[in-house]
């Protein structure tokens, strides 16, 4: 079976899921099965088919599993968002269409994605501006104590970090391709620790600094973990030096510890994470109420969950964005939540597979970076909701409600498929 036919068949689970999901939610809500659920399913399936045909025409050799996995996650996401709020779901569907259009635009305009390297400094500057934009007065908006959104005229809000993560990965892939040899060759041993040459390592240090700044200015532990983690991963893959990673992690840990103990609002987040059930923190304004109720929602879910539409949403703050994983666990249980995580892992696996098949270092690093940053985003939000790490409000890719997230992740998918198509193209 050809790769594209495999992709086509891969869409079947997504189609079934979206139909079954809407059916479930409808039965729960209206106590009757309306054919609207089937209509939703059909429209969604048509969009996925359109995406598929487009890939068939433009990227015939691309990985056949990524698009179906994204369709699966997105269809699951639309059901979950619909379950929380039908208005949000309608908007989410519109964003989905826009995402699909941008996906196609990216594939057409960046057909030779290696041209992006020429614009790497422009890209990194834009990315960094986007990163600090939410902090600027008048534009930025504080949500749950963190500055992650900007207001767009028309009452919409927008999370620019979703795009800066892609920009930073493109920059790093390009920069590390150039300097990875020198970093290894010019490395010196100081006190038994191998250090890369400062000249080439400088920009990397700048990003470390920025991650720390993000931590302070944006009160955003999760995003800085995401960016910094992607940086270290790409550095490791590019140079093969574990010592760089160890030094980097140690530096991050020290920085995070210092900020966590000395900056009040970061410290408050740490406290909420450590003691969510402390009544004092629980009842405090902006305290651990959100974390604690996310945990309560999960515990109520148990192994199999309460069933679609059974959640008591008034008890879960931000159910369609930050806490959507808690809603999933509440309604579908440990098994449902694990299935979602496995779908993400499979997608990341296909991304890494693409990286290993790539024929040049830029492509490899780009695929590794994009997959890693995607995986870290899932880890940051799910880890936050499950209390593995302090909670930060990033979106759960393709599932959470959020326009920027859907669109940006479709661009990410487009780039991965572009790399994949080139690397799997038969050698003439």
């Amino acid at each position, binding site marked *: 079976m050809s790769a594209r036919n495999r992709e086509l068949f891969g869409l079947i689970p997504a189609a079934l899921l979206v139909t079954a999901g809407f059916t479930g939610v409808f039965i729960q809500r209206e106590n009757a099965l309306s054919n609207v659920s089937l209509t939703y399913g059909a429209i969604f399936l048509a969009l996925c088919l359109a995406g598929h045909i487009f890939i068939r025409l433009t990227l015939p050799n691309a990985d056949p599993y990524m698009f179906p996995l994204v369709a699966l996650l997105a269809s699951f996401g639309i059901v979950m968002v619909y379950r929380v709020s039908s208005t949000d779901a309608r908007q989410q569907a519109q964003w989905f269409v826009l995402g699909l259009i941008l996906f196609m635009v990216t594939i057409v305009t960046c057909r030779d994605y290696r041209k992006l390297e020429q614009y790497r400094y422009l890209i990194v500057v834009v990315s960094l501006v986007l990163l600090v934009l939410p902090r600027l007065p008048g534009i930025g908006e504080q949500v749950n104590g963190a500055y992650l959104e900007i207001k767009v005229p028309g009452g919409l809000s927008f999370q620019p970090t979703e795009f800066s993560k892609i920009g930073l990965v493109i920059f790093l892939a390009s920069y590390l391709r150039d300097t990875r040899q020198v970093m290894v060759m010019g490395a010196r041993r100081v006190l038994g620790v191998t250090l890369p040459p400062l000249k080439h390592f400088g920009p990397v240090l700048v990003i470390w600094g920025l991650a720390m700044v993000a931590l302070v200015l944006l009160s955003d532990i999760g995003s800085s973990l995401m960016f910094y983690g992607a940086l270290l991963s790409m550095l490791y*893959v590019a140079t093969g030096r574990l010592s760089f990673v160890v030094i980097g992690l140690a530096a991050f840990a020290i920085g995070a510890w210092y900020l966590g103990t000395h900056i009040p609002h970061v410290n408050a987040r740490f406290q909420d994470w450590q003691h969510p059930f402390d009544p004092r923190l629980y009842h405090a304004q902006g305290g651990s109420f959100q974390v604690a109720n996310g*945990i309560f929602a*999960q515990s109520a879910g148990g192994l199999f969950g309460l069933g679609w539409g059974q959640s008591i949403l008034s008890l879960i703050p931000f159910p369609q964005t930050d806490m959507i994983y808690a809603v999933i666990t509440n309604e579908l249980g440990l098994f449902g939540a694990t299935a979602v995580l496995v779908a993400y892992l499979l997608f990341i696996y296909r991304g890494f597979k693409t990286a290993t098949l790539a024929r040049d270092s830029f492509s490899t690093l780009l695929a590794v970076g994009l997959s890693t940053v995607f995986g870290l985003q899932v880890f940051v939000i799910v880890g936050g909701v499950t209390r593995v790490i302090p909670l930060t409000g990033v979106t759960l890719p393709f599932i959470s409600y959020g326009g920027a997230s859907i669109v940006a992740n479709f661009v990410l998918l487009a780039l991965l498929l572009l790399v994949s198509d080139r690397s799997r193209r038969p050698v003439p």
Partner: protein
Amino acid sequence: MNRQIRNLFGVIVIMFALLIVWTTRWTVIDATALNNNALNSRTLITALKVKRGRILTANGETLARSVKRPHTVFWTRTYPQGPLFAQAVGYSNLARGQSAGLERYRLDDLKGAQTTLNSVFGPLGGNQDVGDDVYTFLDPKAQQLARQELAGRPGSVVALDPRTGAVLTMYSNPSYDNNHPSAPCSDACQLNRATQGQYPPGSTFKVVTATAGIDSGKYTPDSTINGDSPKTISGVPLNNDNNQSFGPITLTKALTDSVNTVFAQVAEDVGRRTMTKYMKRFGFYDLPPIDLPRDELAKSRPYNAKGRPYLPASPNEDIGRIGIGQGGLLVTPIQMAMVAAAVANNGKLMEPRLTNKVVDPDGRTVRTIDPQVYDQVMSPKTASEVNLMMRTVVDEGTGTPAKLGSGVPFAGKTGTASIGTTGSGLTQPWFIGFAPANDPKVAVAVTIEKTNGEFGGQVAAPIARDIVQTLLSEGK
């Protein structure tokens, strides 16, 4: 670079594994503790969605039921009989976390067995959120009569089936409207005086002293004891009523005329240890073993002048005065009903219980609360002897006002404990008993708080008589 990519993927797999482990921690490992966490209002909201079952009288009258709050999916409780059954039924306001009585004690039954495993699509067939009905033994007629005859005076009426421990009547004054438990009220209206009120039992306690004396083998009903007044007990002179001296009389005659000096001597002679042993067998020193929340129960036992309980058989207690129901002894009305019931049931004391059975919404009996033996307090022989002694009390002694018109033999004992400061003239009148004495079906205890010198035979005995008569005519 492929080796590094493989390693990196390994790290990501480990991170995702962590996420699954943590999710498992919340959904499975710590789930029970989290579901019961005080901050977790989810459990409460789930509970509010359940239509709890009814609480009913023996003949099926509704004492508590669920009503839907308008325009919501939540249920609240309403109590059609209000104050008449408030102490036994209690109330339950889940949203405020306030509850009492059977409403609290039987909450799990009233909520029913809730299924925890729902399908992905939730409950498709029927409503599972309906609880079970709880049937009590309470008799509405006798209950109504108790309220009527107490006529607003603070006090308590308890009636038991001595054969099973079934609580047939439990009413106390003042009562409260359990539909509005937060409404302010005076005189501790929410105190369930039947199980929580603590009063000196006065001469009704002589039944316990007589049991200890006879069952220990030291006395028989015909033993002769000097009934002169006063007698020095624990270094202080003790008087009979009106300081009357009876001379040498039998134990039966002493009970019939309620001679204090005789029973004080018996208690001292039998001794603290033996008296305490029999008191414990009757249920003293223990919370009444009834199906009500622990904090609505009080222990019956002697207290010192500072209001602190004596250790059992403490050498500091005045066992002679305890033997006539004074000396700091404080008891609950249900404890005195248990004393009567133990004698009535051939010495075998049954644990009192309000609940008969739990019935599901389809009418199937889910479970029956079986009678439980508390203790064999005395031998059946002692029981029949004490039974006969108590019959003479009603036939020809202080308890004659309790005589049943139908000629059904009634065994009983009056009590009139002096309370308040010496010379205040305040009394706590009592009557305990059971009928028919030759085949006991009802045991009863009646007391009235703080009267101006009224006697148990005068005010408590007639109430007991009417309650017993009503319950017997109801076919109990």
